[in-house]
């Protein structure tokens, strides 16, 4: 009798608990689908807001560089070109530096403590807000590099990239500050993928008489390549979308120039500069530019994820 009663009670409690359980599960389900809703929301909202400009200028928007609110003519070529050039060139500088540093802290050139300190220091730097880097770029980097830029123009002026007189704020400075921003990302991801290469591969290479760098170049780097590539792509996405530091140092000029020593524009710096006080067609055109930026970074990110999945280490 007594036993039956408790069983009955438990059963009743179980009924309520079951309901709570279902509610809990469904709440979690709804919350997790927020991510998808927000992502789709961002894509749709930016697309529909840019629709007016899109139907008006079409794909011509991407290849003309006139940005004239007075005449109501908009083309974002300068900004798109600036985005691509600054991000690719900064990556070009960052990759060897970052991978070199990662090799330095995964090999045993210096004691482990020193390597760990360097490694966590580099990771800490990724936490510095980009607006602070921008401030630093304006007041420290720009005066420091001024002489160097004049030198660059005087001796290499025949190359289109250095063909104009250096101005105070220019695209090359934006590239350099991007290098400072990307270095921690590339270094820490490259370090992680180098660390994941199994020790026995290295020992096997040493065992058949390969020297240290022969081992690194022929065994370790190829094994870690997919991880490093994914890190590089993530850094590329970051560089394209990076706003504050670039906006503060690039000079913000829509006049197109091949030269890196003249002021430039990127899509994100254009948004940061003009969004607050734009109206009419200009807003729609800015949304169009934002849409282009979003598509670019989506492609890069999705490609990076695909790469990780496809070539992730299987040891």
């Amino acid at each position, binding site marked *: 009798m007594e036993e039956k009663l408790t069983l009955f009670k438990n059963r009743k409690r179980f009924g309520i*608990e079951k309901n709570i359980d279902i509610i809990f599960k469904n709440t979690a389900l709804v*919350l997790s689908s927020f991510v998808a809703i927000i992502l789709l929301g961002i894509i749709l909202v*930016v697309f529909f807001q840019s629709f007016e400009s899109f139907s008006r200028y079409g794909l011509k928007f991407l290849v003309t560089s006139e940005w004239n609110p007075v005449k109501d003519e908009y083309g974002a070529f300068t900004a798109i070109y600036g985005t691509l050039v600054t991000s690719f060139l900064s990556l070009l500088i960052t990759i060897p530096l970052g991978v070199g*540093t990662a090799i330095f802290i995964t090999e045993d050139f210096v004691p482990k403590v020193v390597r760990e300190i360097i490694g966590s220091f580099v990771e800490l730097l990724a936490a*510095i*807000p980009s607006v602070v880097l921008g401030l630093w770029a304006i007041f420290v980097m720009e005066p420091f590099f001024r002489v160097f830029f004049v030198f660059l123009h005087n001796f290499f002026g025949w190359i289109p990239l250095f063909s104009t007189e250096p101005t105070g704020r220019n695209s090359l400075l934006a590239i350099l500050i991007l290098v400072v921003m990307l270095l921690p990302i590339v270094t820490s991801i490259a370090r992680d993928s180098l660390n994941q290469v199994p020790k026995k591969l290295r020992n096997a290479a040493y065992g058949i008489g390969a020297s240290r*760098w022969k081992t690194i170049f022929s065994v370790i780097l190829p094994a870690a390549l997919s991880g490093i590539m994914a890190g590089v792509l993530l850094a590329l996405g970051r560089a394209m*979308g990076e706003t504050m530091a670039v906006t503060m140092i690039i000079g913000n000029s829509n006049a197109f120039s091949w030269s890196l020593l003249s002021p430039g524009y990127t899509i994100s710096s254009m948004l940061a500069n003009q969004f607050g006080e734009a109206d009419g067609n200009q807003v729609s055109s800015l949304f169009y530019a*934002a849409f282009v930026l979003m598509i670019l970074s989506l492609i890069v990110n999705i490609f990076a*994820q695909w790469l990780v999945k496809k070539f992730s280490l299987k040891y």
Partner: protein
Amino acid sequence: MNSLYYQKRLSRNIGDKFFTSLSVICALIAILPLIFLVTYILYKGGSQITPELFTLEPNPPGDDLDAGGINPALIGTLIITTIASIIAIPVGVGGGIYLAEYSKGGAFSRFIRFGVNVLAGVPSIIAGVFIYALIVSTKILFGSMYSGLAGGMALSILMLPTVIKTTDEGLKLVPNELRYASLGVGASMYTTILKVTLPSAFRSIATGVVLGIARAAGETAPLIFTALFSYYYITGFGDLFYEMGSLAVLIYNFALEPYDAQNKLAWAASFILVLSILSVNIFSRILAAFTEKTKRV
């Protein structure tokens, strides 16, 4: 016999020396500017710190020598980050619980995990553009346009992927035996999650969330046209619906001013921002290392 000894002039040894020095040079080029950068920010900003800085309003840029303080921006950053956390943490932890505890690796959870990674890669300024279109330009929040609330929402979009990811990964590290034990003694799923798995993953989740908050606190791009900027003290609850200053936007605005006094204020604000973000990072790193050690024992 000679070949048993290390030979300096052998081409492979010369090549090794060359590449070793190359990687040392790379590391030096990479690290020295970074060390210089941090010390410069801390030195230059630290020298501007005065008690009035924390209590005064910033003066509008002009040729007066006194720039005032950063009180509204400091409070504003705290408020905006808090709003972002209030939105992002429940949503993110809930979503992470679903991914780690309920989903069985089907199409839906794979899609959500993919979406989390994509959302993490969306440029921060796009989050600002999105909130501008959705909230600022439609005046949907009781007719207010630029507001601290809108700024907090924009930041929460940036925090969300971090929170979901750390919850998901933290919960996945909890050994399944714990779940079996709890379910085996008759606990329901939600009791198991709330009483067993979440508490045992608490530290790693908390670390990740705190790092996410620290990152959001330094974000500027989503705020410049959602929260905008304000020179005035935050006096009451109603100020949430008006323009709100933040340290990050203050640095941006005042760095571009031609006046020395405003620039100095930007350095001081950077000092406070960088110092707090770095100390949160270092603290959570130490905490994580400590957790790892205790687990091994």
